[in-house]
């Protein structure tokens, strides 16, 4: 009986060791992939950091419409944030490549799904960035236009336009990420529709007289000024 037990233990040990041995190339491949990706990430991050510093990325970023990014960044440097994010993404890709080398069905599927999902993430990021830029541009246009029309509620109008575009961009980004599905769509429709309806009601009913008085006053003052004053510009 002791012999049988010994044999069983031997066989199980051989099985475990052979399985471990079969995993060894995968582990080595994972380590190698991590090492290579770390080197690539380091080089790329260094080159990127130098390039961004040469174009004064930290200083220019607020002007491009991302003034708050510096606050979220390590050492308040968006350059560091970007380079570290890029390095992390490369390390992650290296890790996924290494994991897929195990040739295990589950990990392969996981990796494949993650890679399939990547374009959605990229599209969502692009939509968010574009949405932020467009929102800022439109908000500035509305603000300047409204101030030049002497509208006291110019900042409110500008903020309204900005947040409408941002909400739209976030909804589109979530749609790309396939997060929330129908709930997001429905919430967005309700929110957007609600804002428009509220504005329509405010202008159409609640503020009808106020708005009409304000517009009449502006029009009459403009007309009066144009006709009364001997002012010309050129």
């Amino acid at each position, binding site marked *: 009986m002791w012999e049988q037990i010994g044999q069983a233990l031997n066989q199980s040990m051989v099985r475990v060791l052979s399985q471990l041995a079969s995993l060894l190339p995968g582990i080595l491949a994972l380590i190698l992939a991590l090492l290579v990706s770390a080197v690539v990430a380091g080089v790329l991050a260094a080159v990127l950091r130098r390039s961004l510093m040469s174009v004064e990325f930290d200083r220019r970023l607020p002007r491009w419409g991302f003034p708050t990014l510096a606050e979220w960044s390590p050492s308040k440097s968006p350059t560091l944030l970007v380079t570290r994010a890029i390095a992390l993404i490369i390390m992650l890709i290296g890790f996924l490549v290494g994991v897929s080398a195990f040739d295990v069905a589950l990990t392969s599927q996981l990796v494949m799904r993650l890679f399939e999902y990547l374009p959605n993430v990229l599209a969502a990021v692009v939509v968010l960035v574009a949405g932020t830029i467009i929102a800022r541009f439109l908000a*500035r246009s509305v603000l300047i236009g409204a101030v030049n029309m002497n509208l006291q509620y110019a900042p409110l109008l500008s903020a309204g336009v900005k947040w409408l575009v941002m909400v739209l961009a976030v909804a589109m980004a979530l749609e790309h990420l396939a997060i929330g599905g129908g709930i997001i769509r429905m919430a967005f429709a309700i929110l957007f529709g609600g804002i428009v309806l509220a504005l329509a009601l405010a202008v159409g009913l609640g503020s009808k007289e106020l708005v009409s008085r304000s517009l009449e006053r502006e029009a009459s003052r403009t007309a009066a000024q144009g006709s009364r004053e001997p*002012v010309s510009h*050129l």
Partner: protein
Amino acid sequence: MALDTVPQPELGQIEGMGGADLVVGLLDAEHKGDAGAACGMVHEAIGRLSTAVRAVVVSNNSTGNPAPTGQPAAGDSQSSSVLYYSLPEPKAAGTPFERLMDAYQVVFAVGGRLGARACCVIRSEPRTLTPQWIWRLVQPVLEMGFDLVAPRYTRLKMEGLLNRSILSPLSRALYGERVQNPMGPDFGLSGKLLDRILGENALKRQGFPIHPVASMVSTTVGGGLQICESSLGTRVQPPTNWADVSSLLAQVLGPVFLDVESNAPSWQRIRGSRPVPGFGALEPASAEGGGVDVSRMLESFQLGTQTLQDVWGLVLPPGTIIELRKLSRLPAEQFRMTDDLWASIVYDFVLGHRLRTISRDHLLRSMTPIYLGWIASYAIELETAGPQDVEIRLEQLSAAYEDRKPYLLSRWRWPDRFNP
């Protein structure tokens, strides 16, 4: 637009004219010119010149009289003759200002094609136009050898404010010539200047948009050519559209700031300024014209100071913004924008335009409340002033632009050092 956009039959007619000594462009905005009257006026004007002149009148009166193109249209003088050519219908696209610039281009191109010794462009309304105007713009070119004749107008103190507050002092500080109306809009040009403008246009067509009026003085100074001024009298202008001042600023200052950018190597070498020769006596301006209601301008300035700080902060240094905020808290009777502050602000916007800190259209439109603030300050300060006081005051403003030019030079050369 130049001659390549003129339809082939019309182009053939222009070339068929052979040549001309003088090309007169009549570009009234409303297209209501009368071909016969225009030719008559030109004929009378050139009749006063000492030599015989063959003149071609180019008008944008596209509905006026297309038939007599290339035929003598007026006058029977044995020495001088006048031919008439009507510009094709302007493109519907573009702003009125852009269409006007296109019309200038066509007149210059016609002048170049005909090898004209002089070219005269009149944009002012036809009801103010007299043969004297044409003669005063043409005679210094044809008989005295000047290359650019800029206009001088009799103006009330609240007229030509954009010109008085920015265009004239900026041009004087940058190019060193004291021209009262650097953007005309009525000009006399020599054939030499015409060739230079056409040559520069061909070079710049790829890079910068072409705005011949904005670059008139800089092109003349850059080419070492001679400038003078002629007094034309009173210029009638349509009433100000207060609802669209920001568009006016964007349309006028955009080309001017572009011209400053493209001529940077030239104006950086120029120091000081000199008066230009003037011809013709200017009728004295009326002392009337005061009593402007500045409350709306001040409201606009205050609203801008409260709400546009984020936008201005991208262009103006913190010190200037603090000054503007202090100014916005002052009561109307104490409201004064100093010349140094105003000149610095204009220079900061010139630099902001060059650096594209924000969209150029946004930048120029955001200047509107500050410009209205300057008008309010000017109106309050000169409420009871006479024409002489106005001239003295404007001379002080121009001197402030010259004094602040080193500031522009420093910021232009090292924009980061001064970056807000």
